[in-house]
């Protein structure tokens, strides 16, 4: 009984410490600043950004692509690891599902921030053209949002029921858990339904996630632009999502582990395994990068040549090499060593991967727009280059803060490590305990 109760104590969501409160407040403040900047943008128009007719998509879009990419972790870990039934994944899946849910929610919000006329959002539904890749994007993001919510919720049911009981001394909280737990009583019928549903959603989320990443890539590769018009883009984006998804998972896992002292549940072994997966992901992504950047240099038609030169030696070279070396080469090298796969270096590498992944999307979106087919003429000199304005930084930071805020709130009320599952694995079910007693 003691062990059973202890487990629940350890894994049940706890109130925030001082640090947690400060963290949350900071996120709220950043989000509010972003919201204020957005309101200013709606009033004055997007002239408050540094986007103009040539760089017509900027950080809003690259940030959006980043969120879509990182949401891939939901299908990766949650689905793949759930389906392979490996028990080591248990502590990680919920974190992955939470990150995925937060990311896809923010992707949906972020894209609206880029619209010139957000007041006409409904046009996307009543006048939708199926021929447009944006329509495909709207459909698939909505779909993925629902599925990632389901894959978070359905396996959560037993834990919600447990927490309902656990917080009996806090009636309000207990009632909320009870409402979400929808009469879960652990009966064989319910368990069967749940198990089947998890199978269904885990299988479903994989093709949906792949379609999501592909459609996102097709927003670019369905145009004629040099740097975007690539047959490589679909799988390239999938591989990129793989990398940033795992990177994000590692980073968040490390922080939560530290803050909630979950070292017993998330061990060095977990980091080691995640490290191996990340190396694998980076190698795949490196392969696609070679196809995307190195190969065109072989024939290099004039327009391609100009674009590649910008990346390798030109204006965007520092950013390009930072992203490629910092985001791919360094992680691969460090993580090939066992010492590199210890939690602390893993965390550093993971943060590096996430940051470089964010800038990677910037490098994909912006430089191509500065190489149109016809020369850039007849516009002010400032239109020949781009760097985000203060409004754009404020709004982007607001979206990133809001993503972290969603994760924080979910972590506050949802057990990070699936309690029921862990108990089953440790043979600590209520039934067993009662048996032991008797």
């Amino acid at each position, binding site marked *: 009984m003691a062990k059973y109760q202890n487990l629940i104590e350890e894994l049940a969501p706890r109130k925030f410490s001082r640090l947690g409160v400060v963290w949350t407040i900071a996120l709220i403040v950043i989000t509010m600043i972003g919201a204020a900047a957005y309101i200013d943008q709606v009033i004055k128009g997007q002239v408050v950004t540094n986007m103009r007719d040539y760089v017509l998509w900027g950080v809003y879009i690259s940030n959006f692509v980043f969120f879509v990419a990182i949401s891939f972790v939901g299908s990766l870990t949650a689905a793949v690891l759930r389906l392979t039934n490996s028990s080591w994944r248990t502590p990680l899946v919920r974190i992955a599902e939470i990150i995925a849910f937060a990311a896809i929610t923010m992707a949906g919000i972020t894209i609206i921030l880029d619209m010139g006329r957000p007041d006409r959002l409904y046009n996307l539904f009543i*006048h*939708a*053209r*199926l*021929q447009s890749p944006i329509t*495909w994007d709207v*459909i698939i993001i909505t*779909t993925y949002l*629902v*599925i990632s919510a*389901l894959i978070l*919720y*359905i396996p959560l*049911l037993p834990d919600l029921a447990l927490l309902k009981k656990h917080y009996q001394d806090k009636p309000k909280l207990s009632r909320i858990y009870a409402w979400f737990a*929808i*009469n*879960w009583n652990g*009966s064989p*019928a*319910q368990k069967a*339904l*749940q198990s*089947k*549903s998890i199978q*269904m*959603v885990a299988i*479903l989320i994989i*093709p*949906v996630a792949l*379609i999501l990443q592909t459609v996102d890539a097709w927003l670019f590769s369905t145009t004629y632009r040099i740097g975007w018009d690539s047959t490589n883009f679909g799988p390239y984006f999938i591989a990129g999502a793989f990398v940033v998804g795992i990177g994000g998972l590692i980073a968040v896992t490390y922080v939560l582990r530290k803050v909630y002292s979950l070292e017993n549940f998330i061990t060095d072994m977990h980091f080691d395994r995640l490290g191996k997966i990340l190396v694998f992901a980076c190698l795949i992504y490196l392969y696609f990068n070679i196809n995307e950047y190195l190969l065109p240099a072989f024939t290099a038609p004039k327009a391609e040549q100009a674009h590649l030169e910008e990346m390798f030696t030109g204006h965007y070279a520092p950013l390009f090499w930072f992203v490629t070396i910092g985001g791919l080469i360094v992680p691969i090298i460090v993580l090939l060593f066992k010492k590199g796969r210890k939690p602390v270096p893993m965390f550093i590498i993971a943060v590096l991967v996430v940051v470089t992944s964010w800038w990677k999307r910037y490098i994909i979106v912006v430089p191509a727009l500065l190489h149109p087919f016809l020369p850039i003429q007849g516009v002010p000199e400032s239109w020949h280059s781009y760097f985000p304005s203060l409004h754009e930084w404020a709004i982007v930071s607001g979206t990133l803060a809001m993503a972290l805020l969603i994760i924080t709130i979910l972590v506050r009320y949802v057990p990070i490590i699936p309690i029921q599952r862990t108990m089953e694995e440790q043979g600590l079910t209520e039934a067993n305990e009662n048996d032991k007693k008797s």
Partner: protein
Amino acid sequence: MKANLKARFAALILFGFCSLIFIPQVNAQDEKAKPRLSVEYHKTTGEPASIFVKGKFKGEDGYEPTVNLDVNIYKVITEDSLAFLGTVTTNAKGEANYTLPEEQNDTALEHYYVVKVEDNDKFKDADSDLMFMDASLTAEIIEEDSIKYVVAQLLDADGNPIEGQSLKVKVRRLFAPLTIGESSYDTDEDGSIMVEIEDPIPSKSGVLTFEVVLESDDYGIVKAVFDAPIGVVIADLDTFDKRTMWSPPGKTPLFLFVFANIIILGIWIVIVLLIRNIIKIKKS
């Protein structure tokens, strides 16, 4: 009574004052500009003959049309006497048309007219003379040995053929007529021309409107206009009614429509089942 007079006097003073302010401002330029008037005699099949006046003046940026300018039309009876016919006002392009009434009595060979700008606030006085002789121009399409020709004949007021006049053969198009064949053809001793239509002329309706035009100092601008159903009909080149990737939502390509909906429905049926399962769990 006295009050009324006072009021009228005040009004007059005010009127005079306002004129002093307004009139100089109306004449923004210190001097009135000298309009240059060009006059032509226009006669087109099926329309009454008219005198066409076009005015322009030298403005700041070069020649500009005289807009809204009153021009008086006079017929010259004898060397000294003019008969006032009417006034026309030029439009935004500086052009005006005065429709000539049907003349039954005038058997003179040459007709003389004068157009004048007189007593105009904005422009100096100007005039321009017009002399023309009446001519009739007829034209039609004939076909010989499966070749189509435009034939036209130019006759003077007495019905005699006019030789050596330069005629242009055109087909009316959307914005300006297209010349057929050479830039012009001279009439022979019968006053006629015959122009081969070498390339088939396309038209959506199949009906072409031809004009044969004489531009002459003596006869004015005389046009013979007629329709002929010899246009080659071109099939539609647009994709408006087809299902294409650039069509409106109602004309989505079928492949895309079917394929996309199968995928979407397939996924959402599973989602619905999942939600059903959740409800089942709740109920059990």
